[in-house]
């Protein structure tokens, strides 16, 4: 009898231990993201490399020291970040400090605490920051996040290709006729003058320069069903279809296509933001320059976008989180981010660190001009949806398979 009993006991013990192990395993995952002590905060931010993670951890240390807190850094790749943030939001378990891109601010507005009334307690002066990006991070008067970087969309061009073609370098005041003439001359064989991206970012600066319109009106409504937009879209489509200065679009969904084609030397011009400049210069086998948007009917205009850090409405210690949030974009953090080339600082006084720390003084004239000519990039709460549909329907439209009207109809249906 005794051996029988002990066998059963053994079995029971074994099973119980396994169950306990499984349970503790389940618990471990969720408790690690929570805040244990009163000065512990968590911060969720996207990143693309270990070097970037190290840089953000350094910023977390600066902010922790400034606010008397310990900040745990959590990260995900850009695309995963938004999926993860969405599922965290759905389950009500976000980090205390959450990063957000200005284009997605309306979509995630409910997630954030309004920092506006807290600014003086946080020791933040609004006028220290670029007003355009600060406005872009406000939704219905609520300041969702403090910006750390921003930038206007500009023309990236292949200096080497321009030189070889004997073309003058695009400078302030160059026109859309100059742009088209250069693009024609630069298109030979398998190399094109321009990459006509299928994303709104590639087209909105042209709509701004031609007609002074964005895809979203000043009162926050998606409106591309206008004569102005029809004109710009037809002009843009013609770059591929009739002028043939841009390659047919390879696929929807390849957001990086434009950058890759430009960097590979397959397209001599491309629309991009300063956040890509340092990487482009380091990666490309040719010299990269930036030019202002070519002057159209409304001048040389563009839009600017950026990102910032906000406090989750679910954060337990709102005041401490707000102080830490201010620390993430304080003078030290912004100087460090600018100098190391991680971000074009949203703090205007620290922008010189970006130029000087990265040998980009030659870009300053164009940057200053375009920052002055930029409006904040306006989006709607359904912008991801709009962006997706835009991307999917722009491909057949710009490839000449469908017309501009059907494109407008499909995108406008997402309003």
């Amino acid at each position, binding site marked *: 009898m005794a051996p029988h009993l002990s066998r059963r006991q053994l079995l029971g013990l074994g099973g119980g231990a396994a169950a306990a192990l499984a349970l503790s395993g389940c618990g471990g995952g969720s408790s690690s993201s929570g805040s244990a002590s009163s000065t512990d905060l968590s911060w969720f931010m996207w990143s693309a490399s270990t070097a970037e993670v190290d840089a953000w951890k350094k910023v977390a240390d600066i902010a922790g020291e400034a606010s008397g807190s310990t900040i745990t850094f959590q990260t995900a790749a850009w695309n995963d970040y938004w999926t993860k943030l969405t599922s965290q939001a759905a389950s009500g378990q976000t980090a205390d400090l959450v990063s957000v891109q200005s284009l997605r601010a309306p979509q995630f507005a409910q997630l954030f605490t309004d920092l506006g009334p807290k600014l003086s307690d946080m020791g933040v002066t609004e006028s220290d920051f670029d007003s355009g990006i600060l406005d872009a991070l406000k939704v219905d008067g609520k300041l969702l996040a403090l910006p750390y970087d921003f930038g206007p969309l500009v023309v990236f061009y292949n200096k080497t290709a321009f030189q070889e073609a004997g073309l003058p370098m695009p400078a302030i005041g160059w026109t859309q006729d100059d742009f088209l003439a250069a693009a024609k001359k630069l298109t030979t064989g398998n190399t094109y003058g321009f990459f006509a991206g299928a994303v709104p970012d590639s087209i909105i600066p042209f709509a701004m320069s031609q007609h002074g319109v964005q895809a979203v009106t000043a009162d926050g409504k998606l409106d591309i069903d206008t004569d102005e937009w029809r004109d710009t879209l037809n002009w843009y489509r013609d770059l591929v279809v009739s002028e043939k200065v841009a390659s047919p679009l390879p696929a929807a*969904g390849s957001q990086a296509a434009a950058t890759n084609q430009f960097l590979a030397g397959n397209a001599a011009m491309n629309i991009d933001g300063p956040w890509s400049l340092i990487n482009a210069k380091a990666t490309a086998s040719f010299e990269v320059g930036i030019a202002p948007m070519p002057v159209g009917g409304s001048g040389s205009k563009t839009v600017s976008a950026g990102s910032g850090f906000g406090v989750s409405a679910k954060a337990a210690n709102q005041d401490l989180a707000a102080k830490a949030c201010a620390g993430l974009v304080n003078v030290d953090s912004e100087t460090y981010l600018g100098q190391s080339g991680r971000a074009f600082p949203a703090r205007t006084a620290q922008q010189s660190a970006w130029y000087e720390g990265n040998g980009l003084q030659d870009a300053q004239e164009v940057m200053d001009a375009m920052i002055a000519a930029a409006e904040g990039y306006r989006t709607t709460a359904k912008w991801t949806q709009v962006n997706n549909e835009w991307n999917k329907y722009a491909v057949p439209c710009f490839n000449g398979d469908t017309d501009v009207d059907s494109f407008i109809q499909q995108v406008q249906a997402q309003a």
Partner: protein
Amino acid sequence: MALTGAVRVTDAVETPAPARGSKKGDGRAASAFLLPGAIGFVAFTAFPIVASLVMSFFDWPVLGDPTFIGFGNFVELFTTDPVFTTALLNTAVFVLLYVPVNIVVSMGLAVWISPRIVGRRYYRVLFFVPAVTPMVGNAVVFGLLYTPRGLIDSVFQTLFGVSAPNFLGSSTWALPAVVLMSVWQGFGYNLLVFSAALDAVPPSLTEAAAIDGAGPVRQFFSVVLPLMSPSLFFATVLTLISSFQVFVQPYILTGGGPGNSTTTLVMYLYQSGFQNFRLGFASAIAWVLFVIIMGLTAIQFLGQKKWVHYDQ
């Protein structure tokens, strides 16, 4: 050939249950051992399934409060929603192209490497490699192959002097291109299943058929294939289920475009839930997909009586 679960279940029923009493005490140990698995099942399978069913009857945004709307999501799917019908149709076309091509290719290659040809083990490994490499990586590489001025286009220009179609940028070519990539990725698994089944066919039967005057083709279709039918059934069921759930290939290759020409049900589910923030609507899509897969699998199980032979 292995016996199926169905046969064994019948056996188990016929076996008299062990006498109760003497082994009563094992119940506690058994439950203790079952507990970890049961916890996992409840937490990660049963709960999400029930939760998604509940959610499908709500307008459930990611941020904000859910509202009960009854069958509202389902009604919207089948009446006013412009994308769902397209996604359903795209998925159906994908399945109809992918499943037969996958089965024919994997069966063909399995038969080809089945005779004692030199290095057939290496062929098996070679053909299995795509199935074990990450699909995302494969999709990215195929994206580069398909792109204008990519490898396929260059070969076309060299051989024929004309450009290849803009595979992923054309509404006509995008879905076949996605199917082709999927077949390349997926045939290795079925090939392994078929290869093992072919090895299990007793040579004495084919030899007997040969003596009776049956040629290789007749031998294959009248002797080998019926003997392989359980494997064929298994492969068809699993391939069909997985092909209805196709997501990664269009997600990476085309983003569901151009237009909605490669938007599949799961792709649309993902977009609805995680990009458009409509979790209830996405759950409704999941349940429609579940019912479709369940129905088709049930039909396959009913149909197997006609063509699947479990006797040796």
